[in-house]
């Protein structure tokens, strides 16, 4: 058991972040991550030798989080906050991060909120959760090629909900 506890410590941050991006609530995300680790422990016998533990765990945690979101029967709002506004003592955004104007940022967040849950999961996992396509494929239980095509379609729908960026923004 201490060994599994060690494994939980190693992956708890990734599990919590993934769950949070799905349920959009810190308490729910903690519970979903705990559920996920317990289910993974119960399913250890089914874990295939030679497989990677991380994507296997991610899939279980993401399923636990989606089940929680489904059973909560409410439209969860991401309620994403920028770091500078979140806490007075929080990390100072990098100068680069400051480039994104507040108005454009609000438009983007609002467009993401209007997406379907499936599209939103893809966008937030890819950009905010910083999961790789392979990890997303594991979390969403689908082939990597499907992640690519679904991500492309989700981006298309996000684009529709946004005004064209200013020509200034198109310059590198």
């Amino acid at each position, binding site marked *: 058991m201490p060994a599994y506890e060690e494994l*939980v410590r190693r992956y708890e941050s990734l599990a919590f972040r993934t769950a949070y991006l799905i349920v959009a609530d810190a308490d729910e995300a903690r519970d979903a991550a705990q559920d996920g680790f317990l289910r993974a422990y119960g399913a250890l016998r089914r874990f*295939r030798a*030679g497989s990677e533990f991380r994507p296997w765990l991610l899939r279980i945690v993401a399923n636990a989080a989606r089940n929680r979101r489904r059973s909560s029967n409410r439209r969860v709002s991401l309620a994403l906050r*920028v*770091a500078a506004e979140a806490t007075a003592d929080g990390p100072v955004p990098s100068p680069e991060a400051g480039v994104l104007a507040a108005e*454009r940022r609000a438009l983007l967040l609002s467009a993401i909120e209007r997406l379907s849950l499936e599209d939103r999961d893809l966008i937030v996992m890819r950009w905010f959760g910083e999961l790789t396509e392979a990890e997303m494929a594991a979390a969403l239980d689908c082939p990597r090629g499907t992640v690519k095509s679904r991500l492309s379609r989700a981006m298309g729908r*996000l684009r529709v909900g946004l005004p064209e960026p200013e020509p200034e*923004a*198109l310059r590198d």
Partner: protein
Amino acid sequence: MTEVFDATLDRELTLLAAQIAIPATPPIAPAVALAIRQQRAPSRLGLRLSRGLVLAIIATLLLVGIAAALGIALGGVRFVIGSGTPAPLPPGVAADRGLGRLVSLEQGRSAVSFQIRLPAGTALGEPDHVYVSTLVPTGGRVALVYGDRPGFPADPKSGIGVLITEFRADIGPDSFEKLIQQGVRVEEVTVNGATGYWVAGGQHFYYYRNADGAVVDDTMRLVGDTLIWEEAGLTLRIEGAPSLADAQQLAAALH
């Protein structure tokens, strides 16, 4: 224009991500550990059932033993005394064990970056099946699967007698510090003059460092208790031998 817009959107999302505040991860491991300990506490009913099951298994084994001693048919199954020629291992018996792809021994030799070692002059003889994985770990991994052999009875569930796995990796005592599940025993032993480990008990994970230095999670006890050791950068694993002495004998015969 759409492509330019997508590239800009990608950049904007990346910048936005840098500004998003995801709450700090709360401690999760203690709650998980507590829940598992509570789950594992056996109920009185569970204990009674376990005893009942044990008695039933003992009774069945006694009946099977008597049938075997007499060489009689029981429930459509004939028990025969003597070694005889073991039936060949059915194809695909190890296909779902994540061992890689089924190949011939020759194909296996050319697929991995090391010389495959075989147990010479033992009851095992030639492997029934050879599997190779060239994805993980670096340099490839070969698995030699043996069915029922004299002195190495097949596991009734898997049909596998012995499984020998060879791959390039470094192992050490820390590889086993993180073993999962209670009831796993790790004994440090000497194998061919090198330090090895005899791991007995339930299925568990362990870690090793592959040829690139990356840490890889793996599972042991696919078919039985395991002897694992490292020789000249090659990690060898023998699973399913009835005892440590049998496993050490096989290890000594690997050339």
